[in-house]
Every structure is written in structure tokens, then in C-alpha cells.
């Protein structure tokens, strides 16, 4: 049980890394990786929301299944995530202004982050139990943060664009960087046999 949870945690950070191995959460991965500070804020916010969203959506899925309305999964999950994000934002604004300043501006963006909805649905599809689901969500968030930090570090070195071909400046060079990074993450494949 514990071993399985640890395996899920590690594999979500490396083998099944969301942005670099599963194409989930690419928009924030490319959009917010311009500097290390914002990467930290976004990474923490995503990890937090993902874990919380899983804690709420997993029991809701059991309820939906019990009532025989499992097909409402998509609608129910996205509404829960949207409401949850709104709630966290309001709570944080009122009670934790220092933290809000750090990661508050990233919260609204998370509603449309496909990694959050993706992990909630993936937990159900994989048939994970509650503890395993939380491990997957938390590991996925950490993996996202990890990839975002590497990407931000690389991009801060790319600031001087004078040596980049003109057509590749801007978005294409960032995508090429992501390609090379994901090549490195390909090396984790087979880590757990």
C-alpha cells in the first residue's frame, strides 16, 4: 500500500510528468515559465488546487456512481473545480493576504488548466482508491512545479535572442526547448519496469 503510493508519487514527477510526458497543462507551462518567481507561485498554486480538487472530486464520483449518473462526471468536476478555485481565492484574499500576493494572481488561470481536470478524471479512470488518488494529484502537482522550474531556469538564459534565427524567436524557441526537455524526461521511461 505505502510502496504503491510512493511509486505513484515518484512516477508522477518523472515518468508521467504532466507537461513533459502527458501534454497536460501546456498553456501555463509555456506561459508562466518566464522567470523563477512566477514559476514558484504557479507551481505551488497548481499543486495545492490539484490535491484539494482530488480530495473533493473523488468522493463526488462515488456519489455519482451510486446514483447511476456517472455520465455527469465532466460537468460535475469542472463546476467543483471552478467553485473551489473561486472559494480558495476569496478565502486567501481575506485571511492570507501575504500568500495571496504571491500566488493569488495565478489562481483564476488554474480553472482552465487541463492538468487539474485531467488528474481528477484520470484518478477515476485508473480505478485508484482515495489515498492513491491524492498521491497522484500531489505528485502530478510536484512534477508540474519541477518541470516549470527547469523551464524557467532555461528560459532565463534565453533572454538574449540575438543568436536565435529570426523565425524561431519567441514561441518556437521555447517549444524547441520543451522538446529537448521532454527528450530528457523520456529517459525516465522504464524506471519502474
Amino acid at each position, binding site marked *: 500500500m505505502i510502496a504503491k503510493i510512493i511509486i505513484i508519487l515518484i512516477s508522477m514527477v518523472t515518468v508521467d510528468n504532466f507537461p513533459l510526458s502527458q501534454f497536460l497543462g501546456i498553456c501555463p507551462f509555456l*506561459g508562466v515559465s518566464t522567470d523563477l518567481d512566477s514559476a514558484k507561485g504557479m507551481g505551488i498554486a497548481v499543486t495545492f488546487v490539484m490535491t484539494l480538487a482530488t480530495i473533493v472530486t473523488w468522493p463526488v464520483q462515488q456519489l455519482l456512481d451510486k446514483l447511476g449518473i456517472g455520465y455527469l462526471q465532466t460537468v460535475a468536476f469542472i463546476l467543483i473545480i*471552478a467553485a473551489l478555485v473561486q472559494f480558495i481565492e476569496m478565502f486567501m484574499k481575506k485571511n492570507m493576504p501575504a500568500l495571496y500576493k504571491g500566488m493569488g494572481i495565478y489562481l483564476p488561470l488554474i480553472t482552465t488548466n487541463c492538468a487539474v481536470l485531467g488528474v481528477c478524471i484520470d484518478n477515476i479512470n485508473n480505478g485508484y482508491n482515495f489515498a492513491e488518488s491524492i498521491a497522484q494529484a500531489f505528485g502530478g502537482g510536484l512534477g508540474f512545479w519541477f518541470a516549470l522550474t527547469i523551464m524557467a531556469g532555461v528560459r532565463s538564459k534565453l533572454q538574449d535572442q540575438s543568436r536565435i534565427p529570426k523565425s524561431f524567436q519567441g514561441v518556437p524557441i521555447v517549444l524547441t526547448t520543451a*522538446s529537448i526537455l521532454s527528450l530528457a524526461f523520456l529517459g525516465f521511461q522504464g524506471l519502474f519496469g
Partner: protein
Amino acid sequence: MAQEKKKSKFQIFTNGLIKENPVLVLVIGTCPTLATSTSVETGFGMGIAATAVLICSNIVISALHKLIPDKVRIPCFITVIAGFVTIVQMLLQAFVPSLYSALGLYLPLIVVNCIILGRAEMFASKNGILDSALDGAGMGLGFTLTLCIMGSIREILGSGTWLAGDWFGLATGFKGIQLQAALGVPGMGIMTMVPGGFFVFACVMAAVHYFTRDKSKIRNSFGCDGCSMQSVCSDDKKAAEKKQEGAA
């Protein structure tokens, strides 16, 4: 707004195809683009599914936009979109199960596709029903077109075939064009994997930059222009900045 009103119906439709292509120009909806463009078949299927949702949600949202209070508009839009995604999901599961399993997780994730919410926020909530439907169709087809281009490159280089697959059971006899067998060159498997996806996308974007270099400025940032959360996000940023100024 005045400028937008002058646009003819045809211009609204073609706007999304080339001039404001959601993926290549606005750089939104990148996740499904990268994930489902491993072959033309899955890319095309994804594009059509997203187009259907986009047209329907644009029509409903433009019809309802006067009734929806401004403050809760985003949750309302998401609910409408999620409803249509569920419909598409159930239809595909019933009639095209091969596509349903090929798209897998990315089918419910159409809900959070920035293109759909972005068009609802930027176009459908400000324009009439017919215009919104045309805009949805144009944007959706632009998305499909991009997916097909990326799918073609990745399929030819990666698997050595083109247009292969049984096309959702419609063309069972058709095997596609077998380039690998004809040329005797093995495919580069990496192109259908994650790094190849990023790399092909980078090259396609670079090509777009190359051909439009005189007409438009090169884009250094991602998606904020087309991002559906732009208004929320920038308002919050302004508020945070104000707070910081107040604190200082």
C-alpha cells in the same frame, strides 16, 4: 467594436481559419494540439469534436448573454460548454467507439480547451447568434486544419504512413498511403512521441513566422491575447499592483 461590425459574414468565418488561427497565431489550445496530432485520423477527430462543441456553445452563449449576469459569466459559460462536451462524449461513445478510445482523456478535456471558453468570452458574448455560429465554425475549422497539418507531418515522419487508419469505421478498405513500404525508409518513432510533438509544433510556428514576418510582429509571449481568463487575470494583477503600491 466599430471595426468588428464592418466585417462581412464571410470575413468572420475566414478570420479563424488563417488570420486569427487559434493555435498558430493566438497560441491557445496547445494541449490537445500536441496530444492528439500523432496521426491525421486522431487529429481530425479531435478537431471535429471540438468544432461541434464550439459551434453549439457559441450559439447558446450568444443567445443567453443578455440573461447571464456579468459577475458569474465564466462559471455559466463553463457549464454550457461542459453540457455540450458531455453530449459529444456520449454520442462518440455510442456511435464512434474507436475515436472515443483514441482520444481518451482528451475528450472530456475539451471543456478546458482555452479556444472554446476564449471565443465565448471574446466573441459570442458580444455578437449575434449567426455571427457567433460562423465564428465558431471558422475557429473550429482553423483548429482542425492545424491539427491535420501537424498530424500529417508527425504521421509521415513518425510512422511512415499518411491518412492511415480505418477513419472511424467509415473506410475499412482504405489503408492510407504507405510511404514506409514504398520508400523502404523506417519511420522515426520519436516524432509520434512527446518530444516530436513539441518539435514539429515549433517548426510549424517558425514557418508561420517566416511567411508572415512582414505583416505581423513576432510574438514573444503566450496566449494572453486569446486567453479566456485574461479579464479576470489582468484585473487581479492590477489589484495586486495597487495593493503593493498602497503597502509601499
